[in-house]
């Protein structure tokens, strides 16, 4: 599994927003890849560029003000950024689909649930109305909606939040995509539903051998569901590795900080949660050196001088921190 070519390979992607105050570098030179059937997680605080990097894959950055400034997004052998827009709309929903954060607002309020699913099926899989409806019922059954044959005639406001997200998942898998982007899929539902939904997403991706990019700020989710984790901060990836690497051997002070601010059941109870002090930097004028340096309690002079390079710590575990670089270790 490890030596196959990645399904999606993002290289050096930069997405910018042109605002009155200047250019916001929401995503700045980010590279990551996903293999077929693999689940990766993009983790980071709000505003660190997770969602923008996902929307960039689908080329859905609102333009203006947004713009993909540079980079390559190689999906299944072709660069999505070079495709004509018609070819891109064919890929959207068919080969790559997305689950949104807000199930309350991401379904059209004036169309029935069934209609929204059959729409995608008719668009991409050349089904006629009858076939599409049967398929929609089957999909709703898969995602665990009771009496799907009745519920497809319902409107989104007649579904609860959790059910809407299930319907959204049904919609996302309707054309058996090779890649699903899940943007904080469980943030707005309560914890019990969260676990059910994630379990559901995991089972489906396993059955269909679908790759999944899980965008979240919750490191607790990551450990359980993702094979590999990319930690983002201020538009950069600052550490990535297997979820075991990240969870148990985090190297970057920011990753450690994130872990320190999440309650853990496997630690003694008297452990106190440690928040990360300060605010993420302004992306219009990011600091010259390491973006995290101003909030880092182990920052030193060198941190402010230049961006630390990505260094390999163990195979497939990389971090962009001076503390982890080999010369530093030697001088210590």
């Amino acid at each position, binding site marked *: 599994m490890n030596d196959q070519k990645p399904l999606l390979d993002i290289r050096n992607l930069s997405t910018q927003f042109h605002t009155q105050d200047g250019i916001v570098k929401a995503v700045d030179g980010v590279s990551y890849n996903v293999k077929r059937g693999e689940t990766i997680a993009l983790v980071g605080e709000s505003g660190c560029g997770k969602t923008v990097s996902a929307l960039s894959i*689908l080329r*859905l950055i609102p333009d203006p003000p947004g713009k993909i400034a540079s980079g390559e997004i190689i999906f299944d052998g072709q660069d999505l950024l070079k495709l004509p827009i018609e070819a891109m*709309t*064919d*890929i*959207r*929903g*068919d080969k790559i*689909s*997305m689950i*949104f954060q*807000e199930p309350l*607002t*991401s*379904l*059209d*309020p*004036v*169309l029935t649930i069934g209609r929204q699913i059959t*729409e*995608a099926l008719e*668009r*991409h899989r050349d089904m006629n109305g009858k076939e599409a409806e049967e398929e929609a019922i089957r999909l709703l059954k898969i995602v665990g909606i*009771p*009496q799907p044959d*009745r519920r497809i*005639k*319902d*409107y989104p406001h*007649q579904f609860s939040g959790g059910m809407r997200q299930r319907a*959204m998942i049904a*919609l996302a898998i309707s054309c058996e995509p090779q890649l699903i982007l899940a943007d904080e899929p469980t943030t707005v539902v309560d914890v019990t539903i969260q676990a059910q939904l994630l379990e559901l997403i995991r089972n489906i991706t396993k059955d269909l051998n679908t790759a999944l990019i899980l965008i979240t700020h919750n490191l607790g989710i990551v450990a359980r569901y993702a094979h590999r984790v990319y930690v983002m901060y201020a538009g950069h990836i600052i550490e990535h590795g297997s979820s075991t690497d990240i969870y148990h051997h985090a190297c970057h002070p920011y990753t450690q900080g994130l872990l320190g601010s999440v309650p853990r059941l496997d630690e003694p109870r008297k452990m106190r949660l440690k928040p990360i002090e300060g605010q993420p930097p302004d992306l219009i004028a990011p600091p010259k050196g390491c973006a995290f340096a101003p909030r880092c309690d182990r920052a030193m002079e060198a941190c402010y001088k230049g961006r630390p390079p990505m260094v390999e710590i163990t195979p497939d575990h990389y971090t962009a921190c001076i503390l982890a670089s080999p010369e530093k270790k030697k001088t210590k």
Partner: protein
Amino acid sequence: MTVAEESVRPHHTLWGDAWIRLRRNKLAITGGVIIILIALMTIIYPFFSRYDFASQDLDAILQGPSAEHWMGTDELGRDVFTRLVYGAQTSLSVGIFTQIIVLAIGLPIGAFAGATGGMTDNIIMRFVDVVYAFPDLLLIILLRAILGGSIYMIFFAIGLVSWVNIARLVRGQILSLKQRDFVTAARVFGGSSGYITTRHLLPNSLGPVIVAVTFNIPRAIFAEAALAYIGIGVKPPTPSWGAMIRDGNNVIFAAPHLVLFPAIAIGILMLSFTFLGDGLRDALDPRLRR
């Protein structure tokens, strides 16, 4: 299992929901019922009427209301009630057909501008602003002079000046709807922009459009009456409430009923549409949904 099946709520479509809310609004229903009654009367009355709207009876001019002539007769001895009913026909058809013209022009232009955005939107909306800034009545008089006095031309003239409101409304709706997640979702699932406009954006903006149309109808009716009053409406002898008031004006002290009845009729019809529009706005506004 049976318990679960029984507990399933009945299906309401969105329009069904709106209808249930509208039904609770007594004033709106009263308005709607009055409009329907007036419309029915204009259809049925001609079959039973003893009078023709144009036939004159110079032996019985300027009579007050009586059993013979329910609302009296005018200065040419024509039955006022009959003319009032035929005038309702004129008013209602003006109300409805101008709105068809308004929708046919305003909806596509507004939707196109809103959905396309950018420079195209800018150019279209500046043109709309120009039409909007032009005084309505002046433009209608101008068009009326060019197009002539048939009732269809009146529809056309009023329609041509009132479509800008709908175009602006639809554009605004679409601009705000475009920011909604479900539109992004539709794009994620491969919808082209034309498809998203017709399938998602337009249906979602329909509620406010229906409300605006309901409010536009009395405005169009009033515009027609005003045109007729200043003498550039439908050609006589076609009855129009505005023309009836103007004719009655000359003899207002001798026969006040000639002004009174058509004025009341205009008032009732306009109020009815306004109440209905109010009710529709409440029923269709998702924010007021309980």
